[in-house]
């Protein structure tokens, strides 16, 4: 059996191609067309829907998406991938355990995996609720009494579709359109797993809510769909951390997050992504912020072989705001193509995008962001800060920020910096007793300090720990 996703030949080829781009001064993508092998049968999608006991509208949504997937062209921004073999992607894998409510009831092998990730501690101390997905199925759903009492709905996505169909239907697929690109359509046809979180108006949840996702078997495509809706003047911070064990063949992840922040609400969404080194990761993230609402994205991208993620916020209501922070590590022969997007579609809206990227060991980090200020979005202010740190000669960082400003009464600012690590700096730290990995970890932690400072302790400490591990082990986790 081959691989679900066949990568472009040595990543050096890729880096060469990107450098050529830079020389030519164009944004022309890697020239080779990605091939798709096999088909996804309509009957398979119908079966998925049936097994999940979905309402009719969801079944039709999947089928519409499948049609779109087949019609749509390969996205031109996709590179580094030669072939995607649909037949090899397992669409629906059910783990042996059934839905359980307590840690103790989980089978040993699952609990062990979670223990290695330090989950029981995290769960005990900081979190209000917890949903874990294992192999595309929600195995563990645990919401504390307090949340239930306050009318908060926190469920695995499939269960939410079954139990609160009308509520879900109002938002599902409305924030991120399936027609946006080919893999969004594929996602909607095959989605499985993910979390649904609804916070009623006025409810403020002070402790962060966390969810973990696991790819448990080879060749599984993860298509989890998470939807968070905050009612007027409510507040929640949702933390998503992805981890996967080391695998032998390539794996493909095409997840999606939709956020809807009603008037005056605050919605914080954090992701620490630490996929193992053979995963191709598409992450489709979009938010809509209504009047006076605030959406915050934090993306900590540590692992994976190839990542494409561009969290976007549409500032639809007057005075809406967004902050979009990414810390991206391209450590080793990996490619991270990331960027924040902010669409100012109303007056007095504000956006801040901060991107910190670190390239090492032959890694390539590319920032590809967008700020669009539509006509009529008077008094809008946007600021983008892109800082890159390149730790050695082999590694690269590129920045392609785009501004589309149609409203003259607005302010759009941008700063960029590239730092390089020198031999002299390494020697200086070595003369104090620090070996190369430790020196790099210190420098990287310092580089992202301003971002860490603003995060809740649990997120900052996990991110810092993961970064430190990446460098001290000379090549990273997994």
């Amino acid at each position, binding site marked *: 059996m081959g691989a679900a996703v066949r990568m472009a030949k040595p990543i050096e080829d890729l880096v060469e191609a990107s450098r050529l781009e830079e020389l030519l001064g164009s944004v022309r993508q890697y020239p080779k067309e990605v091939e798709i092998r096999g088909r996804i049968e309509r009957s398979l999608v119908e079966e998925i829907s049936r097994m999940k006991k979905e309402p009719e509208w969801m079944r039709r949504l999947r089928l519409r998406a499948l049609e779109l997937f087949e019609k749509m062209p390969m996205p031109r921004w996709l590179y580094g991938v030669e072939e995607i073999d649909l037949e090899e992607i397992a669409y629906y894998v059910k783990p042996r355990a059934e839905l359980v409510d307590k840690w103790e009831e989980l089978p040993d092998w699952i609990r062990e995996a979670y223990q290695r990730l330090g989950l029981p501690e995290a769960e005990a101390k900081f979190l209000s609720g917890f949903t874990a997905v294992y192999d595309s199925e929600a195995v563990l759903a645990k919401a504390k009494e307090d949340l239930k009492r306050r009318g908060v709905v926190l469920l695995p996505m499939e269960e939410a579709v079954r139990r609160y169909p009308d509520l879900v239907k109002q938002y599902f697929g409305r924030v991120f359109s399936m027609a946006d690109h080919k893999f969004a359509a594929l996602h909607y046809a095959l989605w499985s797993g993910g979390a649904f979180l609804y916070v009623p108006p006025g409810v403020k949840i002070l402790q962060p809510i966390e969810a973990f996702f696991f790819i448990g078997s080879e060749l599984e495509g993860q298509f989890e769909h998470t939807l968070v809706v905050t009612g007027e003047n409510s507040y929640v911070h949702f933390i998503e951390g992805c981890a996967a064990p080391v695998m032998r063949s390539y794996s493909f992840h095409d997840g999606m997050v939709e956020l809807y922040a009603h008037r005056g609400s605050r919605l914080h969404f954090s992701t620490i992504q630490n996929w193992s080194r053979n995963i191709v990761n598409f992450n489709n993230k979009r938010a809509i912020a209504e009047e006076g609402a605030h959406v915050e994205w934090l993306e900590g991208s540590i692992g994976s072989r190839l990542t494409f993620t561009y969290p976007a916020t549409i500032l639809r209501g007057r005075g809406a705001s967004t902050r979009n922070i990414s810390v991206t590590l391209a450590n080793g022969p990996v490619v991270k193509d990331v960027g924040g997007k902010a669409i100012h579609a109303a007056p007095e809206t504000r956006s801040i995008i901060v991107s910190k990227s670190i390239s090492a060991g032959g890694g390539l980090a590319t920032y590809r962001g967008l700020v669009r200020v539509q006509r009529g979005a008077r008094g809008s202010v946007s600021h983008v800060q892109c800082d890159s740190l390149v730790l050695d000669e082999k590694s690269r960082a590129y920045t392609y920020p785009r501004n589309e400003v149609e409203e003259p009464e607005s302010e759009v600012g941008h700063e960029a910096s590239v730092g390089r690590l020198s*031999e002299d700096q390494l020697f200086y730290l*070595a003369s104090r007793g620090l070996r190369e990995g430790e020196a790099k970890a210190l420098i990287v932690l310092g580089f992202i300090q301003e971002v860490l400072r603003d995060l809740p302790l649990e997120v900052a400490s996990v991110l810092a720990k993961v970064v430190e591990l990446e460098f001290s082990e000379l090549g990273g986790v997994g």
Partner: protein
Amino acid sequence: MALQVENLHARIGDTEILHGVTLRAGKGEVVAVMGPNGSGKSTLLYTIMGRPGYTPTKGRISLDGEDLTALPPEERSLKGVMLAFQDPVPVPGVKLSMLLTAAWNKRRGAKELTRPDPRLLAAVRRNARDLGLREELLHRDVNVGFSGGEKKRSEMLQLLTLRPRYALLDEPDSGLDVDGVKTIAAAAARLAEEGAGIVIVTHYARILRFLEPSRVYVLVDGRVVDEGGPSLAHRIDREGYSRYLSSPAS
């Protein structure tokens, strides 16, 4: 117990700079290495510290009997030799306090290098005060935007805090006024009193008025051309290096 350099030959790239240097600094001893510019004084210290690109081709460097020659710089540091740079490089992102914390924790075998140690920080603040280094600099990225005097003081602060067994000082007085020189000299003297061997490289004898060496080596063109007691330093102070040079003095 000594830092011993025996017949050291070293090159930078293809160029031989040191042609058989021998020197010795015992515990608690202050040893001065003087010489005209370009004589290889800094090269000597870099080679002892293990800077990449500075390759010993012959001879030995040993610390208390242990051969350092094959070890990378971080290992040499942990074994007890540390260099105070003449013009230390700025390291954006690493605060001076964090550098000290990490180096300190490393020496204690602590697993979390970045965990702050309150006892350490108290000692650092005291040492900073003694050196006339503003506390504010502890929270700044090391050497970034530091004045010349601040850099020198920061280097000494690191040595006083991390207490190497042998301290290599590369022109620690250059660019300082008299008070600065006295402060640095006092710090080095304190290190020596506490048992550290000091190798101080200096072009001028000025600092040696406040930090008396027990032995002075004169380095010219990568060779030790003279060796003596403190009076040698006084003589160079008066006469310069002309007697050692075949061409006009620098």
